[in-house]
Structure formats: structure tokens, C-alpha cells
């Protein structure tokens, strides 16, 4: 019964947290830029407005289905990630599963955007995929290191091991090099500056979102809210000892997010090749060094 | 029981008969040659079972060896007789359509003399007679190489003549030395007495004999006449020269080294020479654009392979070498005979001119492919089993030297497959067009088909074949003894 309740309410809870975090990020950036910024619940308004649009244009069935795949895939990922109090599904799939189901929404979006027949969208996808190759390699390597260290690929086990030993056994403490490498990769994964090549509003008219409007864009925003939380949670679970209760969880989410936003706020955008090159030149060697430390 | 001397007498006699009757029989003399060859095949097949029981020794003119001269027919003689007469018969059939012109009787006379010489060399039990038959073989082949009377044919014939004569002289010196030192020319007697000769004399005899015979056996670097001669001779003659003439010379060397001189300590040197011959042949063939030169160089490579197998100093090796000889006779004959009509039909020796010829000459092209596959040793053709036996025999010796040599041999095979495949690809090219080219006539195709059957069906009668070659091998490997012969 408990599980059923969690299944129903987990997406809603994460959605709420996610929208507030996105709202918070807009406010946070605005304040750094000495603007007032929109209210923190602005993302809610946006989604509500978009879902109520009368005209919803579509370029074909894949365009429609992509939206479902985008949100469906994100929900799928979400259930595999242990959050405080709920880790029922986490036993059926490990971090490898999470890493790969995380790509399903990306693929869904890519296919849908492809069908919209807008080159801006295609360019955006091309950039997104190249970035994927950039950040996922170091990220995976840090995860491989953590898994080797603890001799498990299960995220649940990784959390338990960190929580059992207290703060001294947190991934970021035991393996700071891997932690830093993963943090940089995470910045890329979230698509924050300086790795914001995919959307790049000034260059390619928001890329994948170019032909998305109405409820399509609305669902994309819902997905984005949940997606941000998921990606941050993966990092928290791997390196920051997970969370015992929701308060700790939310605090960790916001602290981590703020850290990444601060970087976002002070950087411009890399060119795609530079972004990929950066990923392969800084976090990747860091991760390799970290793994070498673990081996020897 | 048939008398093995028929194998020599019949073709020799028919050759004379042809010259005598040429003035009124004209080109019909070829049927005489056909009869002679059929008789030869019949005799050699009849001989085989008898010889397998017990070697036959024929004393000529009633004077017993070591004073008189004799024929000695062991399994070696019998098997080679079949090889020579069967290949000869098929090539003769091919020649019926291939050789044209008015003075065909010359061709058939020389053809039969070549057969006579080959049989004689294999069967004789006397060293001097060996020289005589060698001369018959050599002289008839010089003339046959230049038979077409074209410029490059004559040039090749002259080169062949000069080098062949050097070879003959060397053999003659060896024969003289043998007589001087051992006091006998009978092979079995010589085998008994050879060990008693002074080592330095033995060395000289050996070297004179091997280098002399090596010229005809196409061992590197004595084989320089071969590419020219084999490529400019009429294709039927190329088939004979490649198919059994060089093998006969080679088997004589092997026979002398093993069973008469009994000097197996030089076999290591021979196998090194063999592998060099193989690699030189294959690499030289690699870049050729003239089809007959490719085949000629490939023969050099194959001779190297055969000599390598035979110089392993084991019965297995000899056995494998003999199987490889059978394979080479069949497959190289196919290739030369097919090439003959490719050249006749297109008027060109250049491989690049055969682009897409398989559409016009499908049967010939098919035979060519079969010949190539067997030559390369692709299963399930006969060549696979012979090549496998060679490699098995070599690796079975367990020596590092032979293992390295095997890898070089296999390298040679790779090179060989590449250049042959290139030819096949050109022949089967879909875009190519060779104009209005006709398929080869029926009779030559029939002859080629018979060779193909040997290759294709070879593996079905493999136990029988290895049975025969096995007894040949054990004959060679055993030292000849006067007492055994009589």
C-alpha cells in the first residue's frame, strides 16, 4: 500500500520540488545580474499557461509520441532512484540501468525534434548528443570507480555504505578527485553554462524547443523540472551520502544546485567542440587519476 | 605380364613411324600418336598392381647388370608412368584441336619423343641410360618450345638450349666421375658402392649431378630458362613441361639423394633452396601481366613446394611431395590448357584483355577456377589434401627450422592466391566485354574436364592414392641394393 502511494505521489513531489528549483534558479540568476527576477512560482504559471494553449501544432506522430517518451522515460528513471523513504524499485535496477534509462527521454526528444523538420532543432540535438559524449564518459568513469571501490553497482548499496560510515565515508570525502570530476560532468549533464550549447537561444533559436509550443512545451518543462531533480539526486546518492530524510534531501539538492548555478551565472557559453574538448581534457583525466588511485 | 619396356619402345617406335609415314598420312599421323598413347596408358595401368607386389627388373639384351643395362620398375616407376602417360594422352587429345598447320607430324614426333624421354628417365636402372633419356627429353623439348616459330619462342628455345646443354654437360661429367670412381653405371650397384668412394669425389659427383639435373628441375637459381620457355611454348607443351617434365627431373634428384647416393645430410640445404625457389617463384609471378608467365612462375613456386616436402627426410614428406606432384600435374595442366584457348580466342597474352571472358567462355573459366582452387589447396579439392600433407609432414618433424619454413611456404601460398584471384576476378568481371569470343572446342574441353575429375574426385579415392604414393615414398627412402633388385 505504501508503495502504491509512493508511486502515485513521488512524481508529484519531485515535480513540485523541481519547479521550485527552476523558479529559484531564475530568481538566483536574476539577482546576480541585479535584476528583480520573476516570482519563484513563475515556472508553475508557465506550465499552466502552456498546457491551456488552444493551438497545439504537431509535425507528425513521432512528434507526438516523442513527448510521451520524454516524460515517460523520465518517470521511469525517477522510480529507479532511491529517495528517502522510497527505494522499492531501486533493487530491480542498478546505476547502469539508471544511466541508460536516463537516455531514453533524450532519445525521445531527439526523435521528435527531428520530425519537426527544423534545422535549428536538429542542430540542437546534434549538439546535445555531442555534449552527451563529452560529459558522460567522465561521469561514467567516476561511477565505475565508486562501484569498484564498493564492489557493487547498486545505488542502494552505495548509499547504505556511505550512510553507515557517516560523513567520513561520503564519496566526495573518500574520493575527492572523482567527486570533482563528476561535479564538472554534472554541470554538463544539466546543460548549464558554460555547457549550454544545446539550447543556445541566441544561436539556434532555443534548438530543440524551436518547433515546440503549447502542451508540447508544457510537457517538456514538466520533464525538465523532474529531470533536474533526478540528475542532482544521482550525484547526491553517489557522492554526498544520499539522504536519510526529506529535509536533508532538499537541503542537499538546493546547496548542490546553487553551487552549479553560481558557475552558470559567471560563465559564457563554450563553442560545442570546445565544450567537448574541455570535458575530455579536465574531468576525464581527473576521473582516470581517481580510478588509478582506487586500483593502486 | 606386360613388359615395361613397351612404355619406351611404343612411343619411340611410333615417333619413327610417324616420320616415315608423314609424307602420305599428312596430319592423320596424329591418330598414330593417339594409339601409342592409349597403349602406353594401358601398359602403365597394367603394370601398377604387379609392381606393387614386387618390383620388376627387365634386363635388356640378356646381359645381366652390373655389366648390362636394365629397366627397374618399382612403385615410383609405375606411378610416374601412369602420371606421364595419362597426362600425355589428355594433352594429346587437346593438341588435336589446338595444333594447327601442315607440318603437324613434327609436333607429334617430338611429342612422343618427349614422352619416351620422360618414361626412360623414370624407368631406367642405369646412370648412363638416364643421361641418354635425359638428352632425348631435353632436345625434344627445346624444339617443341620453338615449335610455333615465332620470335620469342625461338629466343626462349635458344636460351633453354644453352642452359639445358650446360646441365647436360654437368650430368655427363657426373656420370663419367661415377664410372671412374665406382666402376659401375648400374644404379643398384652404384648404391652399394657409392659409400666407399672418397668423400671429396663423392661431393663432386653430387654437386655435378644435382646442379645438372637442377637445371631441368627448375630449382632456383638454375631455372632462369623456365619463365621464357614455358610462356612462349605452345600451351600444350607448357602443360607437359610444367605438368611432368620438371617433376621427372626433380624426382630423379630426390631418388639419387635418398636411395642411391644415400646422402640425406644435404637435405637441409635442399629444403632451404626449395623454399627460396618457392618464394622467388611466387613473388615473381605476383606482378606479371602475361598469363602464361604467371603460370610459369607459379610452376617454379610449386616445384619449390614439392622439393621442400621431399627434402624433409621422412616418408611422410615424400608422400606429401608425391601427392603435390599429382595435384600440380592435374591443376597446372588445366590452367595451361585453358590459357591456351584463352590466348587463341582473344589473341592476347595479357590478363587485362580477358575482362569478362567468363561470360563468353563459361566452361573454360569454370575449369580455370577449379584448377586455381586446387593449386592453392582449397578444400575439398585434391590440392588441399596434398598441401595439408606437406604442412603436416613438415611440422611433424618438430624442428624449428621446418616450422619457420612452413610459415614461409604459407606466405608463398598467400601471394599465390592473391595473383590467381586477381586473374579470376578479371575473368568474371561483370562490366567487361571481350567482343565475339567463342567457347573452346569440345575435344580440348573434354581433356581439361578429365583433369578436373582427378582434382574433384581425388579426395574420394584418397586412401588408394596415399596407398600408392606411400609405397613410392618407402621405395625412395630405402637405399637401393643390388641384392634387393635381383
Amino acid at each position, binding site marked *: 500500500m505504501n508503495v502504491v502511494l509512493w508511486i502515485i505521489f513521488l512524481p508529484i513531489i519531485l515535480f513540485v520540488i523541481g519547479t521550485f528549483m527552476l523558479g529559484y534558479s531564475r530568481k538566483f540568476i536574476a539577482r546576480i545580474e541585479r535584476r528583480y527576477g520573476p516570482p519563484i512560482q513563475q515556472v508553475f504559471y508557465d506550465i499552466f499557461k502552456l*498546457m491551456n494553449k*488552444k493551438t497545439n*501544432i504537431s509535425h*507528425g506522430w513521432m512528434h*507526438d509520441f516523442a513527448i510521451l*517518451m520524454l*516524460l*515517460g522515460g523520465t518517470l*521511469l528513471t525517477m522510480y529507479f532512484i532511491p529517495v528517502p523513504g522510497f527505494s522499492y524499485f531501486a533493487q*530491480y*535496477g542498478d546505476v*547502469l540501468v539508471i544511466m*541508460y*534509462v536516463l*537516455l531514453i527521454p533524450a532519445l525521445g526528444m*531527439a526523435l521528435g525534434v*527531428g*520530425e519537426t523538420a*527544423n534545422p535549428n532543432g536538429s542542430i540542437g540535438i*546534434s549538439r546535445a548528443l*555531442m555534449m*552527451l*559524449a563529452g560529459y*558522460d564518459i567522465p561521469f*561514467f568513469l567516476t561511477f565505475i570507480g565508486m*562501484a569498484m571501490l564498493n564492489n*557493487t*553497482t547498486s545505488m542502494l548499496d552505495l548509499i547504505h555504505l556511505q550512510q553507515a560510515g557517516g560523513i567520513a565515508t561520503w564519496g566526495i570525502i573518500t574520493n575527492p578527485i572523482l567527486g570533482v570530476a563528476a561535479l564538472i560532468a554534472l554541470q554538463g549533464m544539466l546543460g548549464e553554462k558554460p555547457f549550454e550549447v544545446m539550447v543556445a537561444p541566441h544561436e539556434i*533559436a532555443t534548438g530543440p524547443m524551436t518547433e515546440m509550443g*503549447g*502542451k508540447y512545451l508544457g510537457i517538456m518543462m514538466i520533464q525538465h523540472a523532474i529531470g533536474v531533480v533526478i540528475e542532482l539526486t544521482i550525484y547526491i546518492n553517489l557522492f554526498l551520502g544520499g539522504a536519510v530524510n526529506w529535509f536533508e534531501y532538499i537541503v542537499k539538492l538546493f546547496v548542490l544546485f546553487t553551487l552549479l548555478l553560481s558557475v552558470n551565472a559567471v560563465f559564457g557559453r563554450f563553442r560545442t*567542440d570546445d565544450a567537448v574538448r574541455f570535458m575530455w581534457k579536465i574531468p576525464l583525466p581527473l576521473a582516470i587519476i581517481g580510478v588509478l588511485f582506487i586500483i593502486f | 605380364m606386360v613388359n615395361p619396356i613397351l612404355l619406351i619402345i611404343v612411343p619411340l617406335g611410333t615417333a619413327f613411324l610417324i616420320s616415315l609415314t608423314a609424307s602420305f598420312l599428312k596430319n592423320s599421323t596424329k591418330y598414330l600418336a593417339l594409339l601409342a598413347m592409349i597403349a602406353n596408358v594401358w601398359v602403365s595401368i597394367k603394370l601398377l598392381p604387379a609392381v606393387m607386389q614386387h618390383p620388376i627388373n627387365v634386363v635388356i639384351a640378356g646381359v645381366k647388370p652390373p655389366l648390362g643395362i636394365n629397366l627397374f620398375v618399382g612403385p615410383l616407376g609405375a606411378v610416374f608412368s601412369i602420371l606421364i602417360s595419362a597426362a600425355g594422352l589428355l594433352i594429346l587429345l587437346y593438341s588435336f584441336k589446338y595444333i594447327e598447320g601442315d607440318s603437324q607430324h613434327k609436333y607429334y614426333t617430338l611429342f612422343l619423343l618427349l614422352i619416351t624421354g620422360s618414361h626412360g628417365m623414370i624407368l631406367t636402372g642405369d646412370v648412363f641410360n638416364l643421361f641418354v633419356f635425359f638428352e632425348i627429353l631435353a632436345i625434344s623439348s627445346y624444339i617443341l618450345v620453338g615449335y610455333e616459330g615465332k620470335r620469342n619462342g625461338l629466343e626462349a628455345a635458344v*636460351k633453354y638450349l*644453352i642452359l639445358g646443354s650446360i646441365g647436360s654437360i654437368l650430368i655427363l661429367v657426373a656420370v663419367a666421375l661415377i664410372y671412374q670412381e665406382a666402376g659401375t653405371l648400374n644404379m643398384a650397384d652404384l648404391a652399394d658402392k657409392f659409400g666407399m668412394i672418397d668423400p671429396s669425389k663423392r661431393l663432386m659427383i653430387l*654437386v655435378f649431378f644435382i*646442379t645438372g639435373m637442377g637445371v631441368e628441375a627448375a630449382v632456383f*637459381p*638454375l631455372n*632462369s*630458362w623456365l619463365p621464357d620457355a614455358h610462356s612462349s611454348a605452345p600451351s600444350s607443351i607448357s602443360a607437359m613441361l610444367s605438368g611432368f617434365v620438371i617433376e621427372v627431373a626433380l624426382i630423379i634428384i630426390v631418388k639419387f639423394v635418398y636411395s642411391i647416393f644415400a646422402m640425406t645430410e*644435404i637435405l*637441409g*640445404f635442399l629444403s632451404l633452396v626449395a623454399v627460396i625457389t618457392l*618464394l*622467388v617463384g611466387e*613473388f615473381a609471378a*605476383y606482378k606479371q601481366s602475361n598469363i602464361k608467365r604467371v603460370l610459369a612462375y607459379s610452376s617454379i613456386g610449386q616445384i619449390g613446394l614439392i622439393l621442400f616436402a621431399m627434402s624433409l627426410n621422412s616418408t611422410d614428406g615424400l608422400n606429401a611431395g608425391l601427392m603435390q606432384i599429382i595435384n600440380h600435374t592435374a591443376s597446372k595442366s588445366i590452367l595451361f590448357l585453358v590459357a591456351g584457348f584463352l590466348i587463341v580466342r582473344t589473341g592476347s597474352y595479357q590478363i587485362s584483355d580477358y575482362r569478362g571472358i567468363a561470360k563468353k567462355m563459361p566452361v573454360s573459366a569454370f575449369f580455370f577456377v577449379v584448377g586455381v582452387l586446387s593449386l592453392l589447396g582449397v*578444400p*575439398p579439392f585434391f590440392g588441399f589434401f596434398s*598441401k*595439408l600433407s606437406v604442412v*603436416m609432414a613438415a*611440422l611433424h618433424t618438430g624442428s624449428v627450422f621446418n*616450422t619457420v619454413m612452413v610459415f614461409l611456404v*604459407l*606466405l608463398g601460398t*598467400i601471394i599465390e592466391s*592473391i595473383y590467381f584471384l586477381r586473374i579470376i576476378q578479371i575473368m568474371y*568481371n*561483370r562490366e567487361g566485354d571481350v567482343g565475339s569470343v567463342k567457347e573452346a572446342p569440345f575435344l580440348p574441353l573434354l581433356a581439361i574436364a578429365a583433369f578436373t575429375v582427378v582434382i574433384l574426385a581425388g579426395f574420394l579415392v584418397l586412401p588408394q592414392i596415399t596407398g600408392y604414393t606411400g609405397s613410392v615414398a618407402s621405395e625412395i627412402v630405402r637405399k637401393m641394393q643390388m641384392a634387393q633388385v635381383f
Partner: protein
Amino acid sequence: MSIVWILLNIALAGVVLNVLFSKSKIVQKYVSLLVFAGLTYFSFIMYSQVGEHFDFPLQIAGQSIGFTITWLNYYFGIMITGISLLTVIFSLKYMEGKDGSTNYYTVLTLKTFGMLGVIFSSDLITFFVFWEIMSWSTFALMSTGGKEAPKSAFKYFVFAITASMILMAGVVLSYSLFGSFDFTVIHGKIGTLSLSMTGFLLSIFIVSFSVESAVFPVHSWLPDGYSNTFTTFTAYLSGISTRIGIYGIILFLFGIFGMQTIDKLSIIGKINFRYIFGVFAALTMVVPTFTALYQHDAKKLIAWHSVGQGGYMLIGLASGSALGIAGGMFHVLNHMAYVVLIVFAIASVEHRTGTTNLNKLGGLIKKMPVSYLALLFGIIGLAGLPPMNGFVSKWFIYRALILGGYPFLAIAAVIGTLGTILSVYKLIHNMFLGQLPERYNNVKEVGFSMQLPMWILMIVVLGLGIFPGVAMGLIAKIQISLGLAAVPYSLHGIQTASGQLNMMVVGALFMGGLLVAWIIYLLGSRRKHISQYNNYAAGNFLDKNVAYNFNYEFYAAMEHVIDPYRKKIIQRTEQGIAGLTDAVSEYVRRIYTGMINTYGIYVITAFIVTIIILKELI
């Protein structure tokens, strides 16, 4: 009568009938269909005879030779016949009116015959004989098709003949070491060999099989060879033909040499035979996958992936753990299913549009939805994303590598996967998405006989993804029969002490997620379909004359990053070897000057040298 005989005789009869009826394509078609249906049926029911042995009525060197049925070759047998049958069904329509298709079914049957012989053989001689038949028929297969086909087939041939010769040396060497050709006899005696000899013999076999399975750095024949022939052959070749090399590797590594023997072959610490093998496998995954990124021909792109995916199978085997080996073997099946599906989709597009050039296609999803769906299933499998089958086997492999302590091999696998995702998206995008060129406005979906194999394979790809237990049962039997530990599998995945995988849960949650998303989607007002020209164009106007598409140099930035690292070492080495051979040949040719005086000198020199050398010997 044993089923192996029935199988081989049917295949051989198929070859003969195809040759006999080479004039009538209709007869050829249906004869082949019948033959392959028969083959498939008999190979599937073969499990009842597993463990039996059948001798040839012929002996080589006093050894009886023949065939045997084991779980391993049963597994490969059903793959071969199954995929051949689908290929034939697909070809019925595809090959209609194509040039140079006279020998199409003949070579296909011959090739199948050779492969079946290889996998069922129980001794080295039979193995080698059928191996050669297989290589030559592969050559014949590759030579059919486009203008460039003979040239690339030739390249394959050079590699294959070299591998064959090495294999022959290995076969004969084993015989002289063990006195037998029989696999089980050799397996029994393998422990008696010295370590260095074991290593040498194993290396001979592995190197020779590496050529057929296109392991880096001897892979370069594959992409051109596979992509220049008929597209259906591309499917058949990448699906199963290359994997016979993997079969050889599995057989020799685990069936003949055995895990214990291999693990003795250690150089220093962890650097043992398996590790070195794993490094080559890793290079096979990474290098070809990134080369695929540069391709702008769909067939060539997939052919490069065919090389890359082989690396996953090999690295799974190299990991040496039960999970990794199971993953490697499972990946053979999975790869076969999705790669054939992908190539069939490409072939469908080629059938309708006449091109596979990725720069010229686009937007075909509107015209060919089934082919699109087939390609989509295929690429999800290829990229290894859940819930398709490719994910499961890759998951096994990653896990085996991570827990086995091979982090850098594991990351190579990840790099390979990411490269794959990039290039498969390019594939599907450039063919089916984006703007539909005006000239393809009248393109129709392919007919039923071409759709059927695609539907079947889609079911297989998804089915094996959700129910991997179906195949894992067989693989566990193989592992036990090879003396390895088996993976504790369930119908939906695996269950070990250190974590489990349940694909049913993944699938169900995905379905649930889609349902929720669909409900949210329905909350909004109805959608309206619009034309592809009704699009954002920064205020400009679009119509059919405006090329408004992004497909040329899809990953320009990535190429920019990778370019400095592409050294083309392999290509240069190959050219170097070819050049060296030419040079040696040219030099050797000049020995035969044609001048009689030099020839005389040769004879005299030879005479003197012989005297000198023989003097030392006697």
C-alpha cells in the same frame, strides 16, 4: 539419420538446385525459400540430439572426422538458419529486377552450408574444410552487388586467405602436438603442453579467428566489403557471418583450451592473455565506432558498427566471469537481431528511393512508417538502451567488467556506446527525420513480404529485451557444457547476490510512465498537424524549393575534436605492406633478366655455392 546430416544435405541440395536452375529466378527463389524453411525447422528441433556425434565415412591420417551437436553449436545453428530464412523472405521482393542477381541465392545457400559445417564440426579438419568453403563463399557473396564490390571483396580475400593459412598452421601444429584432430581429445591433452607452446598455439587460433570477426587492427576489410554488396547481404554478413569468428573464439577459448589453461597464461599480475585480448576488444569497440561517425552512407555506417559491436562480444568473453561470458554470447544473438533489423530498414529505403546516401535522404517517416519503426527498434537495440535486447547483454558486460576490476575496459565500452548513440541518431535522423525532399513525395511503404521479417525481428528485439530469460536458459546450458559457471537467470533478467536486473519492471514502469505522460498530454487541447514547410524560419518563407535541413556533416564539432587523433595508422600500414610486396615482386622479377649471359652466370655461381655449402655439410 542424424539431423546434422539432414541439415547439411538440405543446404547442399539447395546449392545444387540453385546452380541447376540458374536460368530461372522464380524457381531459385522458391527453392531457396523451401530450403531455408527446412533448415530452420530442422535446426530448431535439433536440441533433442544434443551431445551426439556423427562420423564421416572418410578418414584423414587415420583419424575419423565428423560432426557433433553441442549446446554451443545448437545456439549458433538456430541463429544461422533463422536469419538466413528471414534474409531470403526479405530478398524475394528486394531482389526483383536487380542486376547480377543470378548467383544471389546460390552463394547465399553455399555460405550457409559452409557456416553450418563450421559450427557443427567436431574436429579440426572438418572445421578447416568448412571454414575455407565459408571464406570463399563469403568472397563470392561480397563480389556480387555494386561496382566497387569486387575490389572490396578482394581485400577481404587477402585477409581471409592469410587467416586461413595461419589457421592451417594451427590445425597441423595441434595435430603434431596432440596426435589427433578431435576437439575433445585435444581438450583432454591440453594440460600436457608447456605454457609457451600453449600461448603460441592459442595465439595462432585467436589471430586467425580475429580476422573473420574483424577485431582491430585486422578489421579494415569489413566496412567496404559489407557495404558494397547487396544490402540484404550486408544484413546477412553483419548479422551472422562475422560472428562465426566469435564462435571460433568461444570454442577455442572455452571449449578446447579451457578457462584454467588460459588463466595460466599470465605475463605479469593482471596482464594476462585475457587482458591483452580485452585491450584489442576495447580498441575494436572504440575506434570503429567513432569512424562510423564520419560515414555518410547508411550501409557503411552500420558496417562500421558491426565491427564495433564485435568488440562488446569479445570483451565480454575476455572478462572471464560467468556474467561477462554470458553477456558476450547473448550479445551475438542480440546484435544479430537488431543489426539485421536495421539493415532491412535501410534496404527498404534503398528499395524505394534507390539510395543509401545519408546526405540525400530525409523525412521518410511520413512515407515509410513501418521501416522507420523497424529502424527505431534496431537503433535502440544497437545503442543499448532499455527496454531493447542490446541493453541487457551490454549490462551484463559492463557489470562483469566493473566488478571484475577492469575499469578502463569498462569505460571503453561506455565510450563505444556513446559513439554508437551519436551515429545511430544521425542514421535515423538523416534518413527518416528532417525535411522530406520533394522527389520522395510519391514513395510508398514496402510490401508485406519485406515487412514481415522486420516485424518478426522487432518482436525479437523487444521480446529478448523484456524476457532475456528465453535466451539465457540456452546460454546457461552452453556455459555448463563448457565447464563454466552459469549465470543465475530468471525470465526477466538475472539475480545475483550483488544486485539484480529485472527487465519486466523496467518495461512495466516505462509503459506506466508513457501512460501517465499520455494522460497529461490528453489534458491539453487537440493537436493540429501542419506541413513541414509551415515552420519557424526566422521570418523567411519556406517552400519546396528551399532546402531547410541539417544533415550534412551532422557532427562537425565532434569531427573537429577527434580529427587530430585519427592517424590512419592501419590504412598506412596496409598500404605499406602492399607496397613492400610490390617492391619485392618487382625486385625478384628482375632476377629473370632475359639475358642468357646472366643466366649462365647464375648456373656457374650456383654450382660453386653448392660445392662450398655441401662441403661443409658432408
